[in-house]
């Protein structure tokens, strides 16, 4: 009897436990459903925000492209449908040809490419070498020199700009490619960034290579550089873009039209053809295009680079 009662009790307990489990599952279910609903709401809201934002971002670019393809008179006409502002209805490629002809645009292009390549190569090469010395080699005065590098990183470019200009003037280098290239190569920033990256590389490989009789140059060339491709690519991309876009320095040191880089050439173009909107926009499109291509190819390095420099720096 007692056993039966006990059995009864256990089954009661079991029933209770079961009921509780079902209830719990049910509430879990509703919580899940509610969560799911909220997630859908969040996602819809986010999509709306992002789409509106994306249209705002792209709108001016669309307008630029469509203006660059309009017949000159069409820009100023008022009899237009709203969408004709954004989407090209005519394709006057002649604007591009003309923009290319009225100023030596091809020359500006070549100048920009040449200068950007030289600065980028020089900066990546010398920065990597110096960074290796700072990160891996022992030498007297290392910390002091590195501290000097660090210290100048916060000095605004405006401070060094004037003395460097005077120096270049004394050397007779104003209005030469040297003036465009040399000051751009040596930045403490590149060295600092690569040093930070080299410090994160494991040392075992180098030790093994040293035991095998590998020289420092060999270690640098065969181990450090191949392992640092992401950091090198980031520095390469940023330096190239920065040099490509740089406006103020070429404006200061270059006087001859044939040595203009694209941004200065473009500003000069604007001063000549202030109201030729279609030509101005065609020229702008041509300046932006290479940047877009570099970006599409190297996109992941951008994001990585921003995180690398933004968070650690």
């Amino acid at each position, binding site marked *: 009897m007692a056993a039966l009662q006990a059995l009864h009790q256990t089954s009661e307990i079991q029933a209770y436990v079961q009921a509780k489990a079902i209830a719990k599952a049910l509430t879990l279910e509703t919580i899940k459903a509610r969560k799911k609903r909220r997630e859908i709401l*969040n996602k819809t809201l*986010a999509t709306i*925000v*992002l789409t509106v934002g*994306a249209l705002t*971002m*792209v*709108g*001016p670019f669309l*307008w630029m492209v469509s*203006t660059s393809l309009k017949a000159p008179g069409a820009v*100023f006409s008022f009899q237009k449908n709203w969408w004709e*502002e954004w989407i090209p209805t005519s394709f006057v490629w002649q604007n591009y040809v003309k923009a290319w002809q009225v100023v030596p645009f091809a020359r500006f292009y070549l100048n920009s490419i040449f200068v950007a390549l030289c600065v980028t190569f020089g900066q990546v*090469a010398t*920065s990597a*070498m*110096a960074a290796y*010395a700072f990160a891996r*080699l*022992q*030498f*007297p005065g290392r910390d002091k*020199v590195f501290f*000097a*590098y660090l210290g*100048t990183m*916060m*000095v*605004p470019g*405006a*401070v*060094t*700009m*004037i*003395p*460097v*200009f*005077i120096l270049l003037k004394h050397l007779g280098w104003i209005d030469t490619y040297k003036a465009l290239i040399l000051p751009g*190569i*040596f930045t403490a920033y590149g060295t600092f960034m690569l040093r930070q990256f080299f410090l994160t590389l494991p040392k075992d490989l180098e030790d093994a290579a040293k035991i095998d009789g590998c020289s*420092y140059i060999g270690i*640098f060339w065969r181990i450090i550089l191949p392992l640092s491709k992401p950091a090198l690519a980031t520095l390469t991309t940023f330096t190239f873009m920065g040099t490509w*876009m740089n*406006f103020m320095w070429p*404006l*200061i040191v270059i006087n001859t039209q044939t040595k203009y880089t694209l*941004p200065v050439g*473009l500003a000069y173009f*604007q001063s000549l053809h202030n109201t030729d*909107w279609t030509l101005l*926009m065609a020229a*702008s499109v041509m*300046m*932006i295009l290479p940047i*877009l291509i570099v*970006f599409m190819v190297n*996109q992941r390095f*951008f994001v990585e680079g921003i995180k690398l420099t*933004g968070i*650690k720096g």
Partner: protein
Amino acid sequence: MKSLTNSQKETVTAYGFLFPNFLGFMIFTSIPVAASFALSFISWDLLTPPRWVGFKNFIELFWDPDFWKYCFNTLYLMLAIPLSMGGSLILAIAMNQKLKGIVFFRTVYFLPTLCSGVAIYMLWRLIYNPEFGILNTLIANLGHTLGLTLKGPNWLTDEAWAKPALILMSVWQTVGGYNMILYLAALQGVPRDLYDAAEVDGANAWQKFWAVTWPQISPTTFFIAIMSIIGGFQAGFDPAYVMTGGGPNGSTTTLIYYLYNNAFEWQKMGYAAALAWILFIIVFIFTLLQWRVFGKTVHYH
């Protein structure tokens, strides 16, 4: 004996590796910093011999009404910083909802930052054209649909509107760029269980944001703010040069533009160097501030 030669070898190698960069660093950075300091006590137009004038450049700057006007302009234009940061945060939160096509959005938002430069400033000069620019066309069309006659301002030629116009452009340019990516990384780093705990306590989305997200990402906010302020003091030359020429009536001339004019238009090298050093001191103060705060509060990266 052997270890000595080894360490000597290492030293020689190290100097070899360092040499090219160090030489350039001395010539184009280190010595110019010192030279610029000396220059700020000198009056020199590059034609006549330089004259030592002591603190005269700094005193003159202090009594130069233009200097204060351009200081004000520079600060005014920095209103773009909080606006852009707020936008960046909203976009980053939206992007953090694990949507499809996030790479597409990220690319699109990065475009204005990526293409910043003379081409974009020319584009915006046309956008702001009062007669035919797309902005005033939009405003007029909007008015038309509402049954009103709206007429947009003369954005770049009206003293009252030139600075807001540059701010608007700058927000467009920076809102989806570096700051948004930093914010997104920060949001992804907020521990999930903090949100779960807040949910258990019955917090709604708004409360969760202010109680969990905001304090957790505050180091990023601070970092972005300081870096933007440091950049802001040195900004404003390129857009103003291309779009307004610093006008109308000097209303878009910033400190760096004034420095450019002094040094390279009016050949007042010493005066410009003094201006550069004032900029340096301002930047230095904000850098110190950043170091102090970051030295103490950021542990979790």
